[in-house]
Each structure stands twice: as C-alpha cells, then as structure tokens.
C-alpha cells in the first residue's frame, strides 16, 4: 500500500535533504524549527492488465458509443497523440501511446477503416526526431504509417492545412489542423502527467496554430492563471481553453478522447534514492548517491546530459478512460489527484526547490536558463491548489548550475531571446508588446520549426509567460549555484550556497522566515489550506 504524501517538520535530527542541481544533486541542511519538507505521495500500483484496461475503455466509453460502433468503412479517421514533452523522464517501452494507438488501430482494422492518419499534436513544440517517434509509438506503427505519409507531425504554420472551426464569444478564433477538422472522427490519445493537461487543452493547443494559441498563451492570461494545476475557475488559461473547447464541440468534428494517467515511479535502479525519503536511504542508496555525485562532478556536461536523458522511467499506467472529452477529463483528474494531491497547512515565507535536468521543453536537450525559470516558476511553483505554497512577496530559492548553454537545433530562438529580449526586459507584458510579434513571424525560425527540430520562434516567450504568475507573486527569486551573470540576466539573484541564499532572502522575509522545500521528484499538488 503506497504511503500518502508527508510533510516533515525539520528538527535537529533531520538529515540533509536532497536537492536536484541540474545534472547533479546536493544535500542541503535546512534550518531546524522553522523548515518543513513536502514529500510527494508514493507511486500508486499500476494496472495489472494494461492492454485489457485499454480495450475495456474503448468498448465502454463514458457518455459515448463504443469506439467500434463509431467506425465504418470509407470514413476519415484521425488519431492525434501527445508529443514527447511528457512523460518525464521518458517511459520504458512500450509507451502508453503505443499501447493505446495499437488498440485503436486494431478496432479500426476490424471495422474496415482504411483512411487513417496519425498526427503528433505538438502545437508549437519542436518536431520529434525519428527515434522519439519510434519510442512513443513503437516500431510497428512507425514502420507501417510513416513512409506512407500517414504518420506525421502537426505544423502550426502550414496555413493551407489549417482550418478555422469558429470563434468564441470573447473573439478567440479556433484554428486547427485541417485533416483533423475534416475527419469523421478524431481519436485523441493523451497522457495526463499533471492536472493542467488533457480535456479540451489537448486538441485546442496540440493541433492549433499560433493565431489560436496566442489568445491564451499571453502574459495577461497567465498572470491571471492563479492555479494552473488546481481549480479550473482559478485558471484564466483553462477558462479560455474551455471556451474554445465549446466551439470545437459545437462546430468541429466528433471527438473520442482517450486519457491516461501514470504513477510517479519515475527513476529506475540505481537511482531509486531520488524517490526516497532521506532517512530511509539504505547503505546502497548512500553509496550510490556519493558515487553518482562525485563522478558527476568530474563528468563532462555533455556526457552527464546523455546519461540522464537516457534514463527510462518505470512509471506505469494507473487509469485509462475514453469517451466524451469533459466527462473523461473529470475522471482523469480524480486519478491524477489520487496520485498527486496532498494537503499542506498554510503558506511559507521561503519556498525552496531543486531544478532537475529536464523540463517538458527539453526532452533529450539542454536545460537552458530560460527553461530553468520556466521549470521553477512555471511548473514547480504552480504545483498547488487554492493558494501558492509561498506567500505573496515571499522568496523562491532554486538550485541549478544555470549555465549559459543552449541547444541550437531545438532552441534557436531561445538564444536570441536570451541575448536580445532579456537584456532589454524581463517583464512578460513588456516583452510581449515589444518583441513577441517579431519572433513569432520570423521566417528563419518558422523554417526551422517547420522543417527541422526547432521550437517555434515564439516559444521562449511562452516559456517565460508560463512563469508570469510566479514572477508577479514572488518578492525575490534566488538561484543557488547558478552562473552569476546568467542568473542576473534572468532578473534573479545568484547565491553560492544555500546559507548565502537564506541570508540574501532575509532582506525580504526577515531573519527568521518559515521555509518549505518541495521534494521533487515525484510530482505533487499541494492543496494549501
């Protein structure tokens, strides 16, 4: 029986606590008497018969007819799936998407459907490499569909192949992939790693254009998204997405939504110590930790990245449900909460968090400084319900080397964003006004996005906006162990050690602040009372 989440009040007997530092770790001593550590709930048991559960979900959908009865010869069927921005780290083969899509294809074959297209719903994310598609879908699907041109990746800049579905009462235009729009049925295959995913967000972002995304991926909306992972009514982003979803439901093609949830068993042997509570580390865990950190200190960064990005998580499916989008998503969220939600009493003055080597926007790539900000303030800061873990005006302390290093293939516009935009302003609204259009319409970035493996030119702005609410809420952001000039460029304060960071923070929160450490991984949503 997995244990629920746990809040540890730090006292003098508490051991040092594990912090991620990019492609390495550190142990930090937190002040006794006023610190607490939030440990996520332990991974839930996976489904014992995953393929059976998938078949059951397809045959017994929620508020819809069974998939088999919705398929007929001569129809246009489009299967869309989430890209490799999740799960993190990538899961061991077979990936959930492969299992689900194979089951859907089996049903389609039984129904005599010939016209099937499989589309990676990557929105403005980078196109996946062949090895990534093979990992997500398996060799069988890739070999059968890719060379025939029936498996491809969505192109949000291919205006000939985009179709306007309609407009919301607020004037938001929904423009999605034409093939999907013209289909008799879209089957969407989702992995719901965190609670902000899924629902109407799947299609209205994954298969949408820049024109459509800009209605909610903007500073104003994200500053008003007060609980990205929590209640929908507190999230301006989800309110907008749900409005677009209504347009899609009323005017768009029929949708059969398949949502899956995973447990948080993220790291395999020998990295199990990452998921454990420090006082439960065995001699083997301690030896692994010491060996790993000492070796990583002398390992070239490229090799260290290769090692970490090569990790395949043992996480497995905890639920699968299919049918009508909203009804399905409601159940999906219950499963996500069953794994990730835990109650935490009260806010804190200082929130500490270790930033890992990966975020949703750098699978198999470099965690550049902009993504460090996005991961800290956009994702980890937002892992709450009701109210943030840190009080308004409090301090956020992250640990990461924050090297000035970019992947020019994946993040070309991030390089210019860092050098050009961040030297001018770190204010989301101001950068949106002054710079966003130029980057979004840049022909070279557009070309790299459409033909290479680059994120869209506007993507660094979106990554920055993702942290807009955190930026607005926190009084100060400190990065421990980061390259000082790079950290300053982000508008944050560098610190050499955790003690230095507490000292610097005292200017904002006084000499005796309360401290809360978010112990990641695994994932958790703090229900702050």
């Amino acid at each position, binding site marked *: 029986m997995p244990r629920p989440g746990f809040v540890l009040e730090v006292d003098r007997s508490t051991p040092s606590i594990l912090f991620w530092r990019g492609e390495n770790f550190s142990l930090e001593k937190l002040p006794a008497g006023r610190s607490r550590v939030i440990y996520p709930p332990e991974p839930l048991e996976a489904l014992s018969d995953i*393929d059976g559960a998938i078949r059951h979900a397809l045959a017994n959908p929620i508020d819809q007819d069974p998939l088999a009865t919705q398929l007929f010869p001569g129809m246009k069927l489009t299967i869309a799936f989430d890209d490799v921005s999740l799960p993190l780290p990538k899961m061991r083969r077979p990936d959930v998407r492969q299992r689900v899509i194979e089951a859907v294809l089996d049903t389609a074959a039984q129904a005599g459907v010939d016209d099937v297209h499989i589309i990676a719903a990557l929105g403005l994310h980078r196109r996946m490499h062949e090895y990534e598609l093979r990992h997500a879908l398996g060799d069988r699907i890739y070999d059968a*569909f890719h060379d*025939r041109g029936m498996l491809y990746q969505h192109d949000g800049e291919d205006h000939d192949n985009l179709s306007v579905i309609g407009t919301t009462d607020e004037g938001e235009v929904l423009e999605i992939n034409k093939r999907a729009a013209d289909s008799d049925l879209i089957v969407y295959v989702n992995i719901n790693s965190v609670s902000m995913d899924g629902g109407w967000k799947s299609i209205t972002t994954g298969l949408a254009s820049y024109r459509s995304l800009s209605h909610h991926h903007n500073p104003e909306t994200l500053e008003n998204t007060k609980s990205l992972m929590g209640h929908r009514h507190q999230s301006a982003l989800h309110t907008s997405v749900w409005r677009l979803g209504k347009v899609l439901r009323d005017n768009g093609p029929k949708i059969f939504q398949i949502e899956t949830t995973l447990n948080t068993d993220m790291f395999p042997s020998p990295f199990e110590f990452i998921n454990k509570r420090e006082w439960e580390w065995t001699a083997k865990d301690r030896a692994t930790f010491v060996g790993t950190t000492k070796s990583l200190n002398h390992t070239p960064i490229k090799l260290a990245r290769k090692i970490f990005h090569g990790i395949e998580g043992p996480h497995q499916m905890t639920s699968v449900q299919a049918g009508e989008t909203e009804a399905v998503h409601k159940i999906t969220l219950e499963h996500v909460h069953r794994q990730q939600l835990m109650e935490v009493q009260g806010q804190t003055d200082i929130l500490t968090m270790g930033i890992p080597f990966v975020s949703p926007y750098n699978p198999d790539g470099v965690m550049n400084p902009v993504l460090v900000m996005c991961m800290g303030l956009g994702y980890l800061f937002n892992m709450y319900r009701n109210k943030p873990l840190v009080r308004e005006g409090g301090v956020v302390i992250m640990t990461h080397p924050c090297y000035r290093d970019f992947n020019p293939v994946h993040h070309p516009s991030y390089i210019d964003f860092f050098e050009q935009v961040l030297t001018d302003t770190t204010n989301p609204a101001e950068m949106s006004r002054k710079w966003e259009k130029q980057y979004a319409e840049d022909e070279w970035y557009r070309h790299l996005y459409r033909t290479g493996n680059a994120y869209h030119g506007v993507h660094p702005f979106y990554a920055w906006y993702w942290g807009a609410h955190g930026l607005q809420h926190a009084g100060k952001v400190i990065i421990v162990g980061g390259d000082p000039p790079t950290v300053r460029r982000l508008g944050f304060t560098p610190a050499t050690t955790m003690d230095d960071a507490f000292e610097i923070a005292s200017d904002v929160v006084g000499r005796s602040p309360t401290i809360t450490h978010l112990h990641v991984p695994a994932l958790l949503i703090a229900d702050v009372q």
Partner: protein
Amino acid sequence: MKRSAPTRLHSLGQLRRVVKVGDATGTAVRAALRPIRALGFPYRKPMVPKGVVVAADPSKLGANFETGWARSSAAKAARSVITNGPMRIFVKAVASPRVVGLDRLADLQRHDETPPVIFAPNHHSHVDTPLIITVVPEPWRSTLVVAAAADYFFDTRVKGALAALTLNAFPIDREVTSRKSSDELRRLIDDGWSLVIYPEGGRSPDGWGQEFKGGAAYLANRTGVAVVPVFIDGTGSIYGKGMKRLKRGTTKVVFGSPLVPLEGESTRRFNARIEAAVAALGDEALTDFWTARQRAARGSNPKLTGPEYNGWRRQWALAEQRKLGRAGVRRRQQRQWPDLG
C-alpha cells in the same frame, strides 16, 4: 648410458614378475569359480530356449532419454556459458537476427515472479533453436526447455546428451501422443520452466509452413500458461531441410502478444488461434503492422502453409515470398515528402 642400462633391466625384471603374478591370480580365480560354473542355473544365467525371442531391454534412447541432469545447476551454468558465448557468436555470424515485438512481453516481465510461457515459433531450420534461445529475453532464456524430436535428437547417447546440455532439449515423440511426455512437460511448467514448442512438429519440407499440431495449445489449456506466438523469417534459406551446408543470411524474429486460452475454449480452437497469430506475425514481418492487422481483421493473412496449388508454382510463390522477407529485400514503400509550398 652406464647409469641407465641397469635401470632398464631392472624394470623388465619387475614386469616379468607382475605378469607372472597376474597369470597365477587368473588361474586361481578360474579354479575357484569352476565349481559354481558346474552348478549351472540358477547360479548362472539361464540358457535361452531355441525358438524363443527375448524382449529387448527398454530403450534408454528416444523419448525415454533421461534429461533431468541437464536442468541441474551445474548444467545450467555450463549452458549459460555456451548460450552467451559460442552459440550467440554462431547465431550472429550465420543468421544476423533482427528481433522485434519484445515490447509485447513487457507486461509479463513486470511481475515480481515472471510466469513461465510457451514460445510457439514456426520451424524451417535447425538454426531456429539456437536463434530462439539467444533472442528470447531474460528471465525466460535461462529457464527455457526446448521440445525436440525424440527420433531425431535422441537416437544416440552422444547426440541426446549434447542436445540436452546445449539446448536444454527435452525428447518429444512426434509419431504418437505420449502421455509421459506431456505429463513431464506439465511438471516442468509447474516447476517454472518455459518451453519452446514448434507446433508444426518438424522442419518445413518445402520452405512453406505446415499445419499446427495441438501440443502447445493442449499444454496451455492444461496449465493455464500463456502461449507467445513467434514468427521466424529467413532461416529456411540459411539451413533449410535438405540443405547440405550453411549459407549465411539475415533473419527476423517477431514476437507476438501472449495468448491465453479463453474460458471454455477447446484445444483445437486455441491451436487455430495460435496458428492465425503466427500467420499474422508472418504478414507483419513481410509487410507492416497495419497491413497485417487489416488482413487479420478480414481473416486474409497469407497462410503459413502457402498456396493451395502444388508443383513449380508453389516453389515460384516461395521465391516471391522470400524476396519480400527480411532474408531478401524488404518491400520499399513510396516515401512522401511534406509539401511546404
């Protein structure tokens, strides 16, 4: 020289004495036994009456070959060295296998105690067994027993011992259904051993497959273990039945999803399902997953047993089939480039 001559003479003298003592002992023993010999039956072996044929001792060869020793820890250790050393090198050099579909076994591997299974591949060549032994993933590889034809692999002691040691082969009578063999195989499964059973019963005589016999389905029905259909492509061209020497080539091994007998499903029906699954994998190996699934849904996967007609047309079709296969040139599909305007 002066020193060695007396030594040699000394040795010859000793030898003569030993011979003399030996002769004397022999004479004494013969003399001692003379009264017993004179006593005759029952103190001696009886004479066989003329015209009576004495039944031969039960043979210890064929299906009666004792292979229990091949599953001892020492034999397992020796086999592990053979499998991971010379056998793997041989298979790589001769058959250069490409293995797909192992992800279909992932769910079984997730269990703390991985359950035993029955691997049911098609059979074209003696190369099939070393190939399958080296490509089956752990933990099944180290607990794999191969059901081998008793009349072929266990007809002499040396051949039987070699087959038992290197392949962990277990003798199966192909001609008659042996209760003893099936009971023994059930016992092996209960002890946690996994099996390789070639449902065709032997190598293909002409390059096409043969109809499946029900052994694997029967055992699965009795024991409840899953049957993993496997399709092996290419070994027929490497060392097919009747070939005098090995011809290097490439092979493809496709593992299918484990099949378990449905409630109330007869052995015959389950056997047909296994055969259809291997045929679908064969189609998948030669075309692609989607084509194979579409044909499987229509029940039109090409049969393993090949076309109905005989004679040269059958061989002609086989050549075409091999062209499609991994052993020949895989079908190349038209590549479509995105239209970027």
